[in-house]
């Protein structure tokens, strides 16, 4: 086995040059062009819906990286230590992602391209002809200042914790010892409580309020499941591509096996919450709740409704069931890419019926925006990754991660 002797280069640092840099910059350019195209061809609302989709997706993936860090610290897990730098890099991109999401939400509110269901003239004024008693009842919560305050507060808090964990990790690299690790555990526990209570509200605000008449208490967990799954898939993909580029010799099939189990388990968890939301609404059959699925059951969206379940549940369950498919890099890569595309569709199904409804489209704007944000994420994340060595050398569980075996 030879597990006790290893010859890995722990000073290894990712070099962000060449193809990765060129292509991610080209992707960003494509994104900017597609967004500009959307605005110049009078598709402002559709472009804004896409911007919201991708900036939310982008922020979710970064937040999931932060969540991954916190969970592993609190669980005092050893196995992910070898690739802990990857979620750390995600978390360092979080402030930028949050800023983009904030700008998109704020400008969408300002130009009335987003959230016009609850943000409009006279919606809560009984004298106005636009008066909407349901929105009026919710206006104490759903109003522009409070909405923005919440968003700034939540995303600011997450970014602050991202900064804290990275600070502890940096000090750990420099000075060693357990002080910073213990601090990370303590702050992770605090972070997890805050994150657990605020992510549902974050999802209610940014996504669910697009259709402000409708509400579902499952929606927060449904979004959380999607976020965590997308984060795991992105982490796995990043490691796979790093390994293919010749980095991270210490990551082996055992680490992929655990990541694969996570992805397998949480794609089922996503279905579990998705279905829990669906069956409660289906069973109770109350008009104010069924309106959500009614819209998604129109011929415009129905095929995608089914594709969503197949690609995000049936396919990963069948493809990741066996032990070998989790341990082999290539099969895991295929599933991760499929799930990331699948969850784009999932977000699409959450956002589009409430914004552009029957004027939905799938073309230059959708594909271009997605490519642009993917490029932006890759560029920022790899840039952050290249700033520090690929292994937290003084992490107390490093040896355990190197010897990880299942």
């Amino acid at each position, binding site marked *: *086995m030879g*597990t006790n002797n290893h010859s890995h280069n722990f000073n290894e640092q990712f070099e962000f040059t060449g193809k990765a840099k060129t292509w991610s910059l080209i992707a960003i350019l494509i994104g900017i062009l597609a967004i500009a195209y959307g605005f110049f061809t009078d598709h402002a609302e559709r472009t804004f819906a896409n911007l919201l989709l991708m900036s939310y997706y982008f922020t979710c993936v970064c937040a999931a990286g932060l969540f991954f860090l916190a969970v592993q610290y609190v669980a005092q897990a050893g196995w992910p230590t070898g690739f802990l730098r990857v979620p750390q890099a995600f978390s360092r991109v979080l402030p930028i992602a949050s800023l983009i999401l904030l700008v998109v939400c704020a400008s969408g509110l300002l130009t009335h391209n987003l959230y016009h269901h609850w943000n409009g003239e006279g919606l809560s004024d009984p004298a106005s002809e636009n008066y909407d008693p349901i929105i009026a009842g919710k206006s104490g919560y759903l109003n522009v200042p409070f909405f923005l305050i919440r968003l700034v507060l939540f995303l600011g808090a997450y970014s602050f914790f991202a900064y804290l964990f990275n600070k502890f990790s940096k000090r750990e690299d420099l000075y060693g010892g357990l002080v910073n690790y213990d601090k990370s555990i303590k702050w992770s526990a605090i972070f997890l409580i805050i994150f657990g209570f605020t992510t549902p509200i974050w999802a209610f605000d940014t996504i669910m309020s697009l259709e402000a008449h409708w509400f579902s208490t499952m929606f927060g967990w449904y979004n959380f499941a999607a976020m965590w799954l997308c984060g795991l898939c992105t982490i796995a993909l990043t490691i796979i591509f790093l390994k293919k580029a010749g980095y991270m010799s210490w990551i082996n099939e055992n680490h992929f096996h655990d990541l694969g189990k996570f992805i397998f388990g949480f794609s089922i968890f996503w279905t579990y919450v998705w*279905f829990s939301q*669906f*069956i409660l609404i*289906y*069973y109770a*059959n109350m008009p104010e709740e069924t309106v959500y699925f009614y819209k998604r059951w129109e011929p415009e969206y129905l095929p995608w409704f089914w594709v969503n379940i197949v690609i995000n549940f049936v396919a990963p369950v069948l493809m990741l069931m066996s*032990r070998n498919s989790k341990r082999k890099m290539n099969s895991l890569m295929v599933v991760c890419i499929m799930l990331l595309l699948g969850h784009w569709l999932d977000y699409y199904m959450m956002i589009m019926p409430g914004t552009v409804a029957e004027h939905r489209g799938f073309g230059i704007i959708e594909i271009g925006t997605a490519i642009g944000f993917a490029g932006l994420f890759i560029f920022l994340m790899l840039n952050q990754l290249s700033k520090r060595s690929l292994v937290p050398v003084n992490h107390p569980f490093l040896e355990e991660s190197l*010897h990880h*075996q299942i």
Partner: protein
Amino acid sequence: MSNTKYILGHFEDPDDLMHGIDKLHENNVSIYDVFTPMPIHGIEDKLGIKRSRLPKVAFLFGITGTITAFSMLYFMLVIDWPMNIGGKPAFAFPDFIPVMFELTVLFCAFGMVGTFFYATHLFPGRAPRVMDLRATNDRFVIAIDAKENPYPTKIDDILKDAGAVEIKHNERKYVSYE
């Protein structure tokens, strides 16, 4: 020809045990089984133990549960006593899913417990039989079938060289806690 059925080599350290396994393999001594008080990484590969078939059993129990639940619900709600629940059709599939899911889990869990008892001879009330009493306590034990491997003194020497602290020649396969 002695009456020795099994030779048991006791080790105090898992690394010595792993070393002992290597030594025995080098000398073409086949190992009957190894007992350790804790899991040791890499020992399955070393002993050439095949992957457990338990997942397949779990799948079969699970699918039995799914089918049982579906047929039960279908018989009760569609064939035997169709009812109008909220104006939905009698065969309202989404309503079936929670029960199907739960019975899948239930059958799978109970089936696995039963399979585990069956495979390990651990029925409630049955005194467990082990090859050595200290194997479940603090000793790492290699068991060698003496009928298959000639030259017991040579095996003793190999075990001693590898760091065995005690070597037993047992005339019975199992000792019982009784």
